[in-house]
């Protein structure tokens, strides 16, 4: 069916952006922020309504489209801007608009110290991001999706560099932008390849076209195309090798990190693969790569996260590793599981980031966990929400993360990738450990952080916050509210996908299944088969499956709890152990601290050569030599010739008339002569 409402979902935030960016300077904070949040809530409402409509339909017709206009049409290639809501994009819609609204609300409090114009600028960017993200989610064809893809990239650049007066922030923004461009380039190539193959860029069209083909054995053109798309995804979703921008992206305002660099944008890659599930599931080679890359990223980022000291960076690396897990799931064909994890992850990771934001807010910009500790009694709300978030992330039983992660790992195992499963399990162990470390270092123990923060707090008196004197104050109501909501989400979000093993019947998986199946056009049979293959346990559950799942589940919960306990033991009881280990494994420790020297590696292998070529070759050589030379040469020639020609300008009217008439006479003579 079609619905005229869909367009409003991205258009509302866009309107907010227009208003805030044009007249935001003159609006008071309450208005600009309120407006921004309001449009988000409104589009959330519409999204909910649409999803409700969608749910009303039979599983096979769950598809709402709206064609806005004919975008381009050249030769036999035509492309309409069509928005599409199906189970998959429905989930994403709710996540983006829902979490988005929450974070908007949170930001109104968090960014309150900015001056009005900056405040408005911030919210205009935020709205713009929402609009683009929604376009990305709703786009039914790769180009439309790509528009959103690029748009969110732009917004992330703008928001990372929001405090552009700070050099590190500006650099981080640039880094994010450039790294993303690399991925986008690959993505474009992938699009071209697909177009060359299928003559269409409508994703459903491609899907049905692919479904008609046999699964590609060996690494063929199709695999290449999907691989290129995947590279694009690694750029956007911070996977090896293009993950380097995400940790730096923490330079941006914390709510931004929460919204863009944890909950929504970075999941675009995962979403994209899910959206093209049929396509990808036809290229096992690429799937293999995806899975491996995902697993590797998960492990690597987790290990780095273990030693980081910046609260947000820890979270950033955990984000990277969680994304790695999602890609792992995608790679093994457990699309449902991947999206499921994406969805739960959005909740608790947003919750965690906002919690860290609250901490930073309370400590007036302090981000180093070594200077924290003992905040538990000052920031009860933040503390409890943060703990819940961490537990959910660590996969503590019966919290959101638990279900999704287990789902994911189980799928991996069930698809027969034991090694990958092991890696994933290790990654989640690491997760548990560093989250534990984070919590304990930040909130427990005695307060380590010293004068400056307190002084800030005193100074803070001046500008109206730091309610109770020397010690930091808890999050203001708006932030607190959001934290609590998200915490609840982190607890409950998982219950939409209770696996059969626990007597549930993975509602989410069943709901998503059609999206990963080829379009109905390609034939019910295929759809059913694909649904079975992709949506996992929509039906057909035999005993050992459940048994296996139970065992794995217990294992991973053991892992989670074990990890937390280890962390508790090390960082609460015997702090020196950590130091000892650091000393005894000094090289490893240094390696981790320096993030495997990846940045340095890139610097040496890519950045330097490129700079050298541009400076000495392109600038000194081509630009100065050729281009400027040409320009100046032209100028000089004109000058010289003018010097001669101006002699003709006698200033005598009749001289001019004379030349005119000579011309006339000659021309006439010529024509007569012929």
């Amino acid at each position: 069916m079609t619905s005229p409402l869909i367009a409003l979902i991205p258009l509302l935030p866009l309107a907010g952006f227009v208003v805030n960016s044009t007249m935001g300077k003159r609006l008071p904070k309450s208005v600009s922020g309120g407006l921004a949040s309001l449009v988000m809530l409104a589009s959330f409402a519409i999204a909910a309504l649409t999803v409700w409509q969608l749910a009303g339909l039979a599983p096979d017709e769950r598809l709402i489209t709206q064609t806005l206009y004919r975008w381009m049409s050249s030769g036999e290639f035509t492309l309409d801007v069509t928005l599409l809501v199906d189970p998959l994009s429905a989930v994403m819609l709710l996540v983006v608009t829902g979490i988005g609204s929450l974070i908007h609300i949170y930001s109104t409090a968090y960014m309150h110290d900015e001056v009005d114009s900056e405040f408005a600028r911030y919210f205009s960017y935020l709205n713009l991001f929402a609009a683009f993200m929604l376009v990305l989610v709703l786009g039914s064809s790769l180009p439309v999706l790509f528009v959103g893809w690029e748009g969110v990239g732009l917004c992330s650049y703008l928001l990372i560099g929001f405090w552009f007066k700070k050099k590190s922030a500006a650099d981080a923004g640039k880094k994010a932008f450039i790294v993303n461009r690399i991925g986008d380039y690959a993505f474009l190539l992938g699009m071209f390849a697909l177009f060359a193959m299928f003559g269409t860029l409508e994703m459903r069209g491609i899907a049905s076209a692919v479904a008609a083909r046999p699964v590609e054995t060996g690494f063929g053109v199709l695999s290449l195309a999907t691989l290129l798309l995947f590279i694009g995804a690694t750029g956007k979703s911070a996977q090896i090798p293009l993950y380097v921008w995400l940790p730096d992206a923490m330079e941006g305002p914390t709510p931004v990190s929460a919204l863009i660099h944890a909950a929504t944008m970075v999941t675009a890659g995962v979403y994209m693969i899910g959206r093209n599930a049929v396509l990808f599931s036809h290229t096992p080679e690429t799937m293999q790569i995806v899975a491996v890359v995902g697993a590797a990223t998960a492990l690597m980022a987790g290990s780095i996260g273990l030693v980081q000291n910046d609260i947000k960076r820890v979270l950033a690396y955990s984000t990277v590793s969680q994304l790695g897990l999602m890609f792992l799931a995608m790679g093994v064909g457990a699309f449902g599981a991947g999206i499921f994890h994406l969805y739960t992850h959005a909740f608790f990771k947003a919750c965690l980031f906002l919690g860290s934001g609250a901490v930073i807010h309370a400590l007036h910009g302090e981000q180093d966990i070594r200077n924290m500790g003992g905040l538990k009694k000052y920031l009860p709300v933040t503390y409890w929400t943060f703990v819940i978030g961490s537990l959910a992330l660590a996969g503590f039983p019966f919290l959101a993360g638990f279900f999704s992660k287990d789902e994911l790992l189980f799928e991996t195992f069930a698809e027969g990738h034991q090694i990958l499963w092991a890696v994933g399990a290790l990654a989640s162990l690491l997760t548990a450990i560093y989250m534990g470390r984070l919590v304990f270092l930040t909130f427990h123990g005695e307060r380590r952080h010293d004068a400056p923060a307190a002084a800030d707090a005193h100074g803070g008196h001046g500008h109206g916050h730091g309610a109770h004197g020397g010690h930091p104050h808890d999050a203001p109501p708006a932030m607190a509210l959001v934290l609590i909501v998200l915490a609840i989400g982190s607890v409950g979000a998982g219950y939409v996908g209770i696996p059969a093993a626990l007597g549930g019947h993975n509602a989410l998986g069943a709901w998503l299944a059609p999206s990963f199946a080829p379009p109905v056009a390609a034939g019910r049979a295929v759809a059913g088969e694909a649904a079975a293959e992709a949506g996992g346990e929509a039906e057909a559950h035999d005993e050992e499956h459940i048994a296996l799942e139970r065992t794995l589940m217990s294992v991973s919960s053991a892992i989670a709890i074990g990890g937390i306990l280890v962390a508790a033991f090390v960082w609460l009881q015997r702090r020196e152990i950590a130091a000892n280990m650091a000393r005894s494994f000094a090289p490893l420790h240094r390696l981790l601290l320096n993030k495997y020297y990846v940045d340095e590696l890139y610097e040496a292998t890519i950045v330097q050569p490129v700079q050298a070529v541009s400076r000495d070759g392109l600038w000194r050589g081509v630009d100065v030599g050729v281009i400027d030379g040409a320009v100046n040469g032209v100028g000089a020639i004109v000058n010289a010739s003018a010097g001669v020609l101006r002699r003709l300008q006698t200033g005598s009217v009749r001289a001019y008339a004379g030349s005119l008439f000579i011309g006339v006479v000659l021309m006439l003579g010529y024509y007569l002569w012929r």
Partner: protein
Amino acid sequence: MIPLSHYLIVSALLFAIGTAGVFLRKNVITILLSIEIMLNAVNLSFVAFGRYAGTVDGQIITFFVMTVAAAEAAVGLALIIALFRTRESLNPDAFTSLKW
């Protein structure tokens, strides 16, 4: 009846006279007048041709020429007045401050 060629000869003569005037006279106004003469020479040939071809187009074009002439006269004379105010002369050679 008069052959067309006679009209054309007359018009040619007039045109030549106008041309010569543009060169001979050293008075902007007279030069403008000479230009008017040329225009009318052309008009004459237009009307003659039109009559010869038995269409009204010749006359129509004549109207357009007249209109243009009127515009040209208005602007030209305005220019002359402006120039005269600054240079106190009507000799085109007096207005040469833009030459090299």
